[in-house]
Structures are given as C-alpha cells and as structure tokens.
C-alpha cells in the first residue's frame, strides 16, 4: 500500500481492535443488525429443490432477506459504526454488482454521512437499477472508465480517492480484500452468517451439515458462512468461483483454477495475471464475481486444503437461476446462482441423510434486466 495510506490503515486497525473489545460497540451493531437489517435471517429447507435433485437435503441461508437484498449490509453497518467512532464524516466505497454500493449508501443515509461510490462503467450498465438505487439514497455514483471498467478498477479509483482525502474519509471496502485490517475486519462482520446458521441447523437437524457451499468473488459471503465451521473437521466447504465462458476460453474469474500468487490492492493472494505480472481482465455474467483477485484468507485455506474451490460457468449459473426461481419461487442474485449451480451437481451424488447448506447471499431483483438481456427479452 502507498505510504500515504499506511497511517490510516494503522489507525483503522487500532480503532477496530478497540471497538472489538468494547461491549457497547457490539450492542450497537447487534441492535442495528436486528432492528434495521432484519437479522437473524432464516435457514430455509428447500424441500422442492431437494426432491428435484434427489439427493442431500438442501438448506438455504437466506441472506437475500437482509435489508437491501444481500449480505453486504452486515459489513456496511459495522464499518459505518466504526466511521462514527473515528469521527469521519465522509465514506467512499467501490462496488461491482452494486450490492455493496447500495448497502453503504443505505448505511450512510441512516447516519447522515456523505457518500461516494466508485463503479466501473461496464458494471453501471449491467447493474443500472442499483446505480439508480444509490442515487435515490443520496449517494454520488462515480463512473470509472479505466482498464476493465469493472470492480478491479473501481477499487483502484476508490483507493486513489482515499489517498487524497484520507484525513476526512473512511474507505468502506466491500469484501475480504485489501490490506490489513480489512480482510480480518470484514470477515468478523460477516461471520454473523455462520454463527446464526450453525445454531439454526443444530435446531432443525440436531447435527452439523456435511457440506457448506458459497460463491466466491472477493469471498466475504463465503468466509462469513464458513468461519463458524472451520474447526468442525467433518464439515466440507466448497467455494464456487466464476467460470465465465469456460476456463479454456480465458474469459472467467476462476483465480484458483488458473491463477498464481501475486500482490494486488495491498494483499498477497491468488491472482489472474500474465507473464509480466500484469493483472488480467476477467469475465463473469455476475459483476460481483468479476474480479482478478480473491480474499487472502481463501488462498490460505486453499493451500491448507481446508476449503475446496470449483467454478460454475455463466451458462450453469443462468440455469441455476431459472431452477431456483421455478422450484422455490426464489430468484437468486447471479452471484449466488453460481453456488446453486454447484449444488445441482453435488446434491444428487450424496445420500438423502446428508445435508448441504448454501449461502443464498443475495436476491436476484437487481439482475432481472441482465437476465432479460441474456434471454433476448426486451422489457
């Protein structure tokens, strides 16, 4: 990270460490998560999907029910409360799918903070609805027309803004990426997902699940679900990356399938890069998975073989979107549809007594236009 930002990162690490120990901070965050976000979210037994796939029992952790429609608000609330403690009046964020941007715009409106969100112009196009939602919430959406015009460049631009306004602004990074303390702090804010899910499955089934499945862009919803189960050796975990148009096409964001270790945006992790160490362009139907790096903790668990990683292609994710909509009346976010796509392959191979728990990290309302476009339907 640039020297200009190092003191701000140190300050953030110190403030976060203090907040983490402060029972008042926890009480306040719990209050907003309960009364405003709508936690705990339910753990729903998807009976028709289970029957249709004919194997393991499938439970959906319903993060799509959170206020603003995805798990991103868990982190946004935590960081906005932290911003208050640091006495900063302005927040900035990057966004890919727009879910993190909307979550930050929402939390900023709630606390009366000025908010600017950086978004690649390609993402603005495929997530036009979320762009408008942010504007309705009083946020300025700043188009980023550099490089791939997606999440990677939005993060770079947000970091440049932060470098320029570091004394008055807090940067609310949206996933378990970036320099310390971000990956750790964001994991902590998202770990509420797994804590709830663990209690809920014990209540419903009296035992732990056999598999946990979640999509992995930066990887915050996955790490949020997985963390509470990491010590349960028998619980297998699978992260699903974006296979885009297929690995062989080169147009994907499957970092673990073909990437190598490098450093981007202040973190050492698996990256998609060329022979010269230049970050490669990625592709995914879902803007939230369209990023060349993955959270460093995922790289750690990949190397320790605690979490397995696979990918689902655009086409498989679209099929999963349709399937879940028609069997359960739930439209998943295209990101979450990647996790569902893997479940459709996994569940039939397992016994009926086994349990798969999937993180339905967001709802698909934001993707309706994109889905229509892919299906060739004009609205």
């Amino acid at each position: 990270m640039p020297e200009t930002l190092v003191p701000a990162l140190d300050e953030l690490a110190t403030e976060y460490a203090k907040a983490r120990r402060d029972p008042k901070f926890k009480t306040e965050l719990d209050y907003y998560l309960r009364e405003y976000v709508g936690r705990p979210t339910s753990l729903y037994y998807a009976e028709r999907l289970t029957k249709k796939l004919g194997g393991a029992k499938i439970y959906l952790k319903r993060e799509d029910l959170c206020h603003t429609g995805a798990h991103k608000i868990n982190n946004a609330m935590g960081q906005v409360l932290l911003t208050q403690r640091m006495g900063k009046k302005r927040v900035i964020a990057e966004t890919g799918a727009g879910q993190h941007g909307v979550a930050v715009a929402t939390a900023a409106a709630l606390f009366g903070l000025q908010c600017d969100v950086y978004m690649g112009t390609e993402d603005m196009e495929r997530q036009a609805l979320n762009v408008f939602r942010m504007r309705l919430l009083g946020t300025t959406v700043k188009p980023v027309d550099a490089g791939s015009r997606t999440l990677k460049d939005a993060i770079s631009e947000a970091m440049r803004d932060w470098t320029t306004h570091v004394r008055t602004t807090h940067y609310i990074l949206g996933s378990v990426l970036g320099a310390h303390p971000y990956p750790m702090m964001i994991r902590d804010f998202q770990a509420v997902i797994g804590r709830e899910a663990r209690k809920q499955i014990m209540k419903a089934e009296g035992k732990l699940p056999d598999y946990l499945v979640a999509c992995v862009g930066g990887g915050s919803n996955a790490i949020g679900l997985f963390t509470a189960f990491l010590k349960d050796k028998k619980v297998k975990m699978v992260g699903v990356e974006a296979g885009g148009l297929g690995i062989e096409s080169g147009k994907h964001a499957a970092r673990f399938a073909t990437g190598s270790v490098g450093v981007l945006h202040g973190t050492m992790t698996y990256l998609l890069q060329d022979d010269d160490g230049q970050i490669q362009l990625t592709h995914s139907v879902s803007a939230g998975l369209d990023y060349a790096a993955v959270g460093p903790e995922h790289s750690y668990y990949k190397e320790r073989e605690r979490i397995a990683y696979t990918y689902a292609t655009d086409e498989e994710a679209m099929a999963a979107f349709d399937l879940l909509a028609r069997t359960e009346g739930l439209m998943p976010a295209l990101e979450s549809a990647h996790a569902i796509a893997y479940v459709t392959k996994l569940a039939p191979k397992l016994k009926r007594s086994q349990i798969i728990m999937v993180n339905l990290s967001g709802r698909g309302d934001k993707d309706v236009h994109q889905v229509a476009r892919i299906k060739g339907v004009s609205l």
Partner: protein
Amino acid sequence: MSRIQSTFQRLAARGEKALIAYIMADAGADVIELGVPFSDPIADGPVIQQAAERALRSGTSLKKILATVRSLRTKTQVPLVFMAYYNSIFHYGEAVFCRDAVAAGVDGLIVPDMPPDEAGTLRPLAEKAGLDVIFLLAPTSTAKRQATVARLSRGFIYYVSLTGITGAKLTDKADVGKKVREIRRYTKTPVAVGFGIATPDDARQMAQAADGVIVGSALVKVIAEGDHGSAAARLSAFTRSLKAATLGNRELTVV
C-alpha cells in the same frame, strides 16, 4: 558510493539541486526515473495511468525495459531509478530482479505500493545486489515512520508533497518545507520532493526546500501531447527550463 549518492553530492558541492525526471519506459536531468508500467497503478493519476496503458498496449514488459536500460547504459552514466509496482517485481522474482536490474545498470528502485513495513524480503536482496531502495514519506507519515524511512532509504528519500496521487495539484508548498526539515532531523540522506510539480516555478520553490525535485506527470504530458516527431525537442526544452529552476544561485551557463 552509489551513483545516486555521488550525484547528489556533486550537485550539492556546486550549490545545485537535483532534477529527477520521470519518464515512462519508452530524457538534461540529473537522475532519470523510469516508470515500469503496471495495469493497476493505484498511486498514479490519470496522466501516468494512461501512459502505462499505452506502454502495455505496445507490448512493453519488465524484461524489455531491462534490455533498453542495458543499451542505454552504453551511452550515458546518468543515475537510473526504476519506479515499479510490487507485483511486477514479485512476479519477476525478487532476487532475480535485483540481479538483472543491477547487471543492466539500474541504480535504484522506488516501489510506490511498498512501504518499509512490507519490504522485508526485497530490501535485503536489493541491498546485497547493490540496488538503492528509495522509500517514500507522505504528509500523513508519523514521526516514527519518518525516522524509519530516514534510516532505511538509500540514495535519497522521496517525499510525497501532497496527500494524493501523481499529477494532482500542489497547493500547500509551505507545509512541504516544514516536513522536509522534520525529515532532515533524522538523516543526512538527501530528500527529493515529488507529486504535483508541474512548472519551472513549482520546481524552483521546491528546490529551495529540498535536495531534489521529481517531475513526472508534467513531463509525460509534454511527450503525450503534440506530434510524435517533435516530442524529443519539446521534452528537451521543458527539461532545460526545469533544470534551470534547480540551479540555485548559479548562473544558467551550464545549461
């Protein structure tokens, strides 16, 4: 003594300040800073971002830049500093990079996204190879960080004149002088000021405050704007005007 150190000493003996000219790897400066293009240059403003994009599109790579330096070294002994983002070096291999860079004739290295805290592997390798690692300080740096950088930086210390990115507007010039004086409490290593120095007038004022001035975006702009054929002449004229601004009280006869 490294080529960078001896240049600063020679200039100081003449009452001059160093003009450090940044160019994207594609040249009257005392030190040349060669930008190694990276796809995601988070410390750079639009001018250098676009220069990097152009360079990458035309097929520039770290290997090719090192080859250019080797051939350049047969013509000039001017100190050459690389400005490269960490992933470029990490991907090349830190030890191999230090060896190849020194063999090619590179004297120093600025890694804008690598503060000393994160230089644990590269710094000792560079030191062993004889490559000066130049660290940066910023207006936000604490006294403790100033002391650390003053101790670890070789060749010179790069003081970032503003909280922002390259090519931004330099507004608080008085603060720069104050910060440079703070840094000098810890070290005799020369302090050069960069970011936002766009005109000979900026260069003159900053040269009064520090041992050197670094001009990047403004030079890249001179190359990028206007026709290709006359770029060298425009660059030369602009560099001379900047160099004149760093001569202190001396007459302009040397130029």
